[in-house]
């Protein structure tokens, strides 16, 4: 049988974002608040 010379593609089983990234997003979401004033909306990041 002919040899296969092409490189095997790397298997990526664990294709999930890091826990830190998820935590950051959840904390960011908690910290972000939108203040509505008349017709204007302001973003406020309360860290």
């Amino acid at each position, binding site marked *: 049988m002919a040899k296969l010379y092409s490189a095997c593609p790397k298997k*990526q089983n664990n294709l999930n974002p890091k826990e830190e990234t*998820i935590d*950051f*997003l959840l904390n960011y*979401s908690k910290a972000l608040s939108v203040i509505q004033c008349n017709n204007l*909306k302001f*973003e406020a990041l309360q860290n």
Partner: protein
Amino acid sequence: MRHELITDAVLVKNYMNGDESALSTLINRHKQRIYSFIYSKVFDRDITEDIFQDAFIKVIKNLKLGKYNEEGKFLPWVMRISHNLVIDHFRRNNRMPKFDNAGDFNIFSVLGDSSLNAEKRMIKDQVDCDLRRLIQELPEDQKEVLVMRMYKDMSFKEISERTGVSINTALGRMRYALINLRKVIDQNNIVLTN
């Protein structure tokens, strides 16, 4: 399993009404697909992580600002945002290509900074200065030939024409100039290296 029963639309609505845990459920439900989608385009874990984060920051902002109108297409919407961010990433990289120097080929083997650092430059200046002073000690005829050859970059033919001596004499004076310089350097233990 309970979360699976709640549709994205309900979760988005809950989140927009202030339920932070709904976002957690949404992210956990779709993270793998979105992350894989980004990774399939950029093939770099760190960049994927960055784009994933940026995408959800946009999602959070849009939801909080009430810009998202629910049509039961939360996942395609996030995918579209991710896709646009991937395009932005490649566009930015095309404008300013980055070489990560990760493979077998090392860019610094062909690219170097040949200019001297501050210390080396000071040493070189000092050596040049010392050498000029030593040359001043040479006999006038030898000094003349050496200066013309080394500092003015003249050929021996030009030197012989300028000084009115034969080429052989000019060569001989140059030879003696170097011998004398070496002698003085040896006698005085002068170190002329950089």
